[in-house]
């Protein structure tokens, strides 16, 4: 068991290092940061001087090694664009993304499960069919289009909600800022959270529905009905409970996806999170910011996968036995 965890951690570190290497080899295709940092009236001499100063004249494995060396000491460099430490900028932007991701995830889970159960129980009902049809839109429409549609409906036409930004924020502690404590902040999070969570919501809903339908066909449900138990008890205590194992796994994995794919939602709503920061960084070839963001996201995914792997071992004893006997 212990050696299994050690081996998985070792693999995770390897994955991280390779991700970083691939990222660094890609950076030169993103373009040259120098032109953004120097004005129109720069000379070739200025370009060469700055390139050498930033170490961009080095081959990318050298640049990568230097990045790792500094990152290991907690130094992610200075943003080319903002001239401030990258770690500071990421910390400043993280609360916006995390709050958005949390609200989206909660919406997706609550509505996903509720609608999934409903459509499974009333599988032939009119509303269930309407919900299923509409959910197809949630899966097939691209996020940015949903975002723009919501903005046009609720901000431009109805004027109920703000069209962009995070509203007023309140500082909590030394670096966290929250939008949950102001009216404008609460209003501002509604549209982006729906946009970001819609795909996950439909995913969870469809998963819950199919799992429920599967379970409702089982013999023990039939026996429960025969015992004359109330529908509510059958549906929620006997059926839903038994559908939750795969649902929880998927929710866990989707949480990472919500944070990582917040990029598009953040761009559409000008939501000041790390995703928007990353998009800006690509636009300006801000290599330190891009590198730190990509490493952060891969660390997050690797950690989630690691935890899921370890949980499997705990949940499923067969895995443990196999592993142990394999050696």
């Amino acid at each position: 068991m212990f050696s299994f965890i050690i081996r998985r951690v070792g693999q995770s570190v390897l994955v991280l290092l390779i991700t970083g290497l691939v990222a660094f080899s890609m950076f030169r295709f993103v373009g040259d940061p120098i032109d953004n940092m120097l004005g129109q009236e720069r000379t070739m001499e200025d370009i060469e001087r700055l390139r050498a100063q930033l170490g961009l004249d080095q081959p990318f494995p050298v640049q990568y090694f230097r990045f790792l060396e500094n990152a290991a000491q907690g130094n992610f460099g200075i943003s080319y664009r903002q001239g401030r430490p990258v770690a500071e900028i990421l910390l400043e932007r993280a609360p916006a993304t995390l709050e958005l991701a949390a609200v989206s995830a909660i919406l997706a889970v609550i509505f996903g499960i509720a609608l999934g159960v409903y459509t499974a129980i009333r599988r032939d009902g009119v509303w269930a069919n309407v919900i299923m049809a509409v959910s197809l839109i949630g899966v097939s429409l691209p996020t940015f289009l949903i975002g723009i549609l919501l903005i046009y409906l609720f901000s431009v036409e109805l004027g109920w909600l703000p069209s962009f930004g995070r509203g007023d924020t309140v500082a909590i502690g030394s670096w966290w800022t929250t939008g949950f404590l102001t009216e404008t902040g609460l209003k501002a999070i509604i549209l982006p959270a729906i946009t970001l969570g819609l795909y996950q919501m439909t995913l969870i809903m469809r998963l819950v529905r199919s799992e429920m339908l599967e379970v409702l066909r089982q013999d023990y449900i039939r026996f429960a009905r025969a015992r004359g138990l109330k529908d509510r008890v059958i549906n929620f205590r006997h059926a839903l409970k038994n559908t939750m194992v795969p649902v929880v796994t998927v929710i866990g994995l989707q949480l990472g996806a919500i944070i990582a794919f917040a990029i598009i939602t953040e761009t559409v709503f000008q939501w000041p999170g790390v995703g928007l920061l990353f998009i800006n960084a690509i636009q300006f070839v801000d290599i330190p910011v891009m590198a730190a963001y990509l490493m952060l996201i891969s660390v997050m995914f690797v950690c989630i996968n690691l935890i899921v792997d370890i949980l499997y071992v705990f949940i499923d004893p067969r895995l443990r036995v196999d592993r142990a006997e394999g050696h």
Partner: protein
Amino acid sequence: MPRLMTAAALGAVIALPVSAEEFTWAVTTDPQTMDPHAVNSAPVLGFLNNVYEGLVRRGKDMSVEPALATSWEPIGAGEGWRFFLREGVTFQDGSAFNADDVVFSYQRASDEVSDTRSWFAPVSEVVKVDDFTVDVMTSAPNPIFPSSIANWMIMDSDWAAANGAELPDKENGNYATLNANGTGAFQITDRQPGLSTTLEPFAGWWGDVEHNITSATLTPIQNPATALAALLSGDVDFINPVPIQDVARLQENSDVEVIQGIEARIIMLGFPHEAEGLKYSSETESNPFSDVRVRKAVAHAVNVPAILQTIMRGNAEPANQLVSAAMNGYTEGLGSYEFDIEKAKALLAEAGYADGFSFGLKCPNDRYLNDESVCQAITGMLAQVGITATLDAMPVQNYWPELRADNYDMYLLGWSPGTFDAEHPIRFLASTPNEEKKLGSWNFGGYSNARIDELLPQIQSTIDAGERQAMLDEVAQILLDEAAYVPMYVQPLVWGTRSNIALTQRPDNFFILRWVTVN
């Protein structure tokens, strides 16, 4: 705007003396620094023009007018310029402005690490005569110097020293990257990079207040559709730019107004004058574009009016030289290559390319308005005369390195003269590249003409306006005759505002807050 409505409601009840006029404007690019000498780019300088001031400034019609200097005069026979400084001006931190700040700002802005140092290439030294007189000595007579320094902003020497910001630090940032202390009409009260920047009027400003703003917020919105929605919903009062395809729709909306004009930027085609052969063609042994007839054929084959009509939806003006008519030194009555397919074909045949040839056209796809569409149109137009381009469009960050590495057979370029003078593009685009003299640094194709190289220093140092214009006209004529570049049009400027806002649009695309009134 609920807050405004509340204020109005309160005003009705208790008759508040002054109503709060809040103004929010959205731009695509957040100014990356608050240091006026660190980065020479339009988003930075345009924004900081509201906070800092120079010795001179540009008025609503781009004319040069007094700012921190009340007047100026040439010294002797062109040894330099003497500036008489305005008295009683204070910086936003309360300290007084005097000649020491000007000398300090010269040293700071002309330092090797400053992005603005090229403005001071003609300057040999800046001397304080007394507390309110400064001499700027130039190595050669320089008639346009006062008009070339409208963006040279003056910083308080004591403030910079007290905060360790004696020099700009673009790579690591310093106090002046995030904070500002100018003499301008507005001061920064809150700065969150990439999110929002709040300005309030500076009570101690020396000028006459034209605006009625009590608080202004700049907020970057990258996505054009989001910016448009923000304007339509009233979340912001002003956006720049308005996507060209949305102009017609906005004009029908009575809540918003579209303000159109032309920018200082000329969009043109460039050629590889010096290349031995083409890079993206079977013609690897010879270079058709080194033949002036082929370049003229290209100029005749490109249907500029059609591009303006369709892609620019009638919002741009055609161009025949490297500067627009709004610039100083524009050549009047210069000819142009009218759209004529037959003439183009005849010229190609004469040059020995009756059967045409293929080549590669490089184009940015996020730098100029609808740049990629323009290039696609050009590709189609050139195909009609038998020369077939393979279009390669890319983000601007990849584009400049490609041009520097000579990986093109023809390219699209936009040029906006920082000095608003016709000398500027000659120096950067038409001079034979010379690293030492800092000439021709954007002349990717290596165009070279001995007469232009000879005229440039004279243009730079001739005081007499008529004589100078004659030389500028001669250069414009040479560039036209040789079809060194094919200037196509002046890029349009399209701003959108709420209809209760009155403001002034300037061709340099700078947004000047002190000309804004909220009605």
